[in-house]
């Protein structure tokens, strides 16, 4: 079982307590009604789905119930780091291969 560090509970918890909540750092336009159809499609449907490092939202559903962000490697399924929701995308990743 994976252990995921919850930044609010400040410790590693078993993965069964968590739920994935999709890609992180997708900003909603402040003028969503003025978006062109193409831009709205990109915002609403198109996800990066990379092979390698991905920034995701996770929720500690059966713990503190808070959303937070996590950096995960989709190849090894390893969590590189987690940080609180609202914090900026980390520039340096600990233990990143590149």
């Amino acid at each position, binding site marked *: *079982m994976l252990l995921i560090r919850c930044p*609010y*509970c*400040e*410790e590693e*918890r*078993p993965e*069964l*307590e968590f739920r994935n909540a999709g890609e992180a750092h997708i900003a909603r336009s402040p003028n969503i009604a003025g978006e062109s159809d193409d831009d709205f499609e990109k915002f609403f449907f198109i996800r990066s789905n990379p092979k390698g490092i991905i920034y995701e939202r996770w929720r500690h559903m*059966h*713990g*503190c*119930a*808070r959303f937070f962000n996590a950096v995960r490697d989709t190849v090894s399924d390893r969590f590189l780091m987690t940080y609180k929701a609202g914090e900026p995308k980390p520039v340096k990743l600990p233990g990143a291969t590149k």
Partner: protein
Amino acid sequence: MAKAAVKTNAAGPSVERRPALAGQSLSAAGVTLAVLPPAERISLRAPEASIAALSKALGVVLPQRPKTSAAKAGRTALWLGPDEWLVIDENGKDPLADCASISVLHSAVGISHRNVAISVTGPAAAATINAGCPQDLSLDAFPVGAASRSILGKVEIVLLRTAADAFRVECWRSFSDYVFTFLSEAARDAAA
């Protein structure tokens, strides 16, 4: 015009309160399960600025560190999230009334009847709960007084360690049958 509501006598046998699982218990080698008597409970949400006033009104200091709880005079406050607590009163004094008397920003919801509490005691208590709960329940990671929302098998529970070999498991009323049966099976396994 509607007539004033007719007062009904709420003491008839058909409206008698029937707590879920009332009186059930199980003893296996090394672990005992018991359904705890009904208690008053609230789900409390509040920002940091309100904590001091709420602690004073409730008579118990709301814990602010993850996975901790505070207890005083039969009333226990469990940290569930950064702005969320479960307050349990076992002396029949409604914490909802205490919260209603103050004006600082908070949300208190009475959930006394939503939850059922089961006590798991004995040297094999941690092993019994670990049959369905993936958290580390060693005394280092989960000391006496530690509290956390977690899962047991397929359902969500709130776990409170009341002593080195005693836990209080809070679950939703409609899940209580599942939880008690799950713990009963686990207790037999832990004893074996």
